[in-house]
């Protein structure tokens, strides 16, 4: 543990308003059929108290990125490169720019320090509220456990806090629900219980991995509303993973677009929606149905399918589906990240990085 702190205190700066900075993250799965590079070059920052939405099609590495942050990637997956810098506040101190900076990628996944961060500083909620809660333990038991893992409180106090947080996330008759098993609750209530469990230790960052995908639309809206309220109350940052651009529009301060394990574009929500720079982002946005659309119009889809993870395209991962594909360039060169302005970054050879497109190369500092 001492070694860890020494190592991390030397690690570099973090923007003053950043809570977490993921830099060139690589998480690979060595499988029998070949090496799967589930995350291969993900970079983004999460600012204190804001919401970052991570979007992309299924299988683009969003969930693995989230799990990499907590170092809970399933075997045989492993973080093999990059940094995950996290500003760790002292318990009880307010949320501010102070606090030690830890590189989560360098911590031992099973070590005590990583375990204290998991659930304590960074909490996570999952897509399937049914299967993500143990079916044979009461929800109260599972929340109390989360509290007692991180704080030294008596059983009674932990129970009181659990009931309180259940109440706070809008579980009616929280005292009775405390003794309910997950299968006795509706999907929405289960997700509320999950959120209660995540918030029970007052984390600085809440990672939500498609928390509303399995819920019906009304419940989905309620949960999103709840999360916004809780963010105001608790002042935590949220990393929200979704493939639903509607949810992004509603929740996000910042957006990261991922494709095949790589962040292809990032920026604030307004510029991403109104001025998308990457062809993939543009294609994604075109595929949203809009109200004014004629009933006979066909919905725009992105041509092709997400490539096989064992057969990643050479060069830019998106080139074989891209409308602006430049033969000889895009299929040869992996596009470098190009900063467009302070919070805008894109990885596309149209914006530079390719020797032939020299005009825009200057943008790249």
């Amino acid at each position: 543990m001492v070694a860890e702190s020494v190592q991390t205190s030397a690690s570099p700066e973090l923007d003053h308003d950043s809570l977490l900075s993921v830099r060139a993250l690589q998480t690979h799965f060595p499988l029998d059929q070949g090496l799967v590079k589930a995350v291969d070059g993900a970079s983004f920052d999460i600012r204190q108290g804001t919401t970052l939405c991570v979007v992309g099609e299924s299988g683009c590495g969003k969930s693995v990125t989230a799990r990499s942050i907590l170092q809970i990637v399933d075997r045989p997956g492993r973080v093999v490169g990059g940094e995950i810098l996290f500003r760790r506040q002292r318990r009880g101190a307010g949320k501010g720019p102070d606090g030690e900076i830890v590189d989560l990628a360098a911590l031992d996944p099973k070590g005590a320090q990583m375990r204290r961060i998991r659930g304590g500083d960074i909490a996570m909620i999952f897509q399937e509220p049914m299967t993500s809660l143990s079916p044979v333990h009461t929800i109260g038991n599972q929340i109390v456990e989360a509290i007692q893992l991180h704080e030294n409180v008596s059983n009674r106090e932990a129970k009181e806090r659990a009931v309180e947080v259940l109440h706070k996330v809008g579980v009616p008759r929280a005292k009775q629900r405390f003794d309910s098993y997950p299968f006795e609750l509706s999907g929405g209530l289960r997700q509320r219980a999950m959120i209660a469990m995540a918030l029970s230790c007052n984390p600085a960052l809440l990672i939500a991995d498609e928390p509303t995908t399995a819920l019906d639309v009304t419940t989905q809206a309620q949960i999103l509303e709840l999360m916004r309220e809780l963010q105001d109350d608790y002042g935590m940052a949220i990393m929200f993973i979704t493939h639903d651009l509607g949810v992004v529009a509603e929740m996000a301060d910042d957006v990261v677009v991922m494709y095949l394990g790589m962040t292809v574009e990032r920026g604030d929500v307004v510029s991403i929606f109104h001025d998308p720079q990457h062809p993939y982002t543009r294609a994604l946005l075109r595929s949203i149905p809009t109200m004014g659309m004629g009933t006979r119009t066909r919905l725009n889809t992105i041509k092709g399918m997400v490539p096989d993870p064992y057969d990643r395209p050479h060069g830019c991962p998106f080139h074989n589906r891209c409308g602006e594909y430049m033969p000889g360039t895009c299929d040869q060169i992996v596009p470098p990240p190009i900063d467009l302005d302070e919070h805008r970054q894109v990885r596309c050879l149209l914006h530079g990085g390719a020797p032939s497109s020299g005009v825009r190369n200057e943008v790249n500092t």
Partner: protein
Amino acid sequence: MTHVEPAPDTTGARVDPDTSPEGSSAVPGGTKRRNNLYTASQWRLMWWRFRKHKLAMVSAIFVVFVYLLVLFAEFFAPFHSSDFDAEYQHAPPQSLHLFEETDDGTRFNPHVKGFDYESDEETWRRTYTTDESEIYPVRPFVHGHEYELFGLITTDIHLFGPTDPDAPMYLFGADRNGRDILSRVIYGTQISMSIGVVGVVLSLVLGIVLGGVSGYFGGWIDSAIQRVIEFVRSLPEIPLWMALAAALPQSWSQVQVYFGITVILSIVGWTTLARVVRGKFFSLREEDFVTAAVLDGVSKPRVIFRHMLPSFTSHIIAAVTLAIPAMILAETALSFLGLGLTEPTVSWGVLLREAQDIPSIAHTPWVLIVPAVAVITTVLALNFLGDGLRDAADPYNK
């Protein structure tokens, strides 16, 4: 804050697709392979997956070999199972010498050596010693006793044996009547291995019919059949088999007993298969591709035979493979207890029955060890094979 990956220079970037470390086969070869994967028939997918299962492959080869023994037992066995020689009761295993030391040096002459023995005055137990002077050459494709292959071809060729058909050759020892244990174990495969197959076929018919009926009609028929299955399975098998086997009339011929035993084994065996069939039937009924076929207006028989059956034959084959060893073990147990087949029929269970008397086994352990090893390795191989098939039966599942 900028992160620029080192921009590769043009020459470096234009890597030959075939030599670049990954994604190399991306465009041409990979697509082709993948297309193969998507269009491959289910059996081919199964075979691809099965091939990767090394242990199952080895086991498959072994099982094929054992069934060859069944078909050509007379050819593989150097002697007939009932050939006996009172001179060599309980003779120990001999070693097969490849070279002979003669006065002119060493020459290649596979042979076994003869025995001398002394009888203990009190116990009548014999102690054998090797007689170095007696040499019996052993050759491949020798002429031995005459037999009819499949009742058609009459021949006297054996895979190997002593050149003199009456010479004592006991590579795995002799039993109390001086019969060659190796030959008896080989002959034993005929009964032991076939009883497994016949029993499984019988239970398969019962299992598919009743399991299918159960899965197809559902409702009260299903629950009635399920109750019967639960009932049969809740009874301890061996007492049940014992009772049924004891009920076989004493006057029955060995062939009748043989079929009686298979029927008895199937009485319990079918329940397992019926459960597999029914379970598969139920889960397949809920599968999207079946729903899709039904919605497309495909006729019911076509849904069953064209869409559902192919996707569970592989499972049934795996279940059957796993059911055979259970039958083999059951036969050995019954024959061992003296309730199944008896002398002069030769099965592995019958052979093991001779190994009941522990003090005598202590002096002639090969009587127990040889058939025991045969049973265990065969059952082991069938289990591995069945496991491999079961894993391969789900090519889309990882």
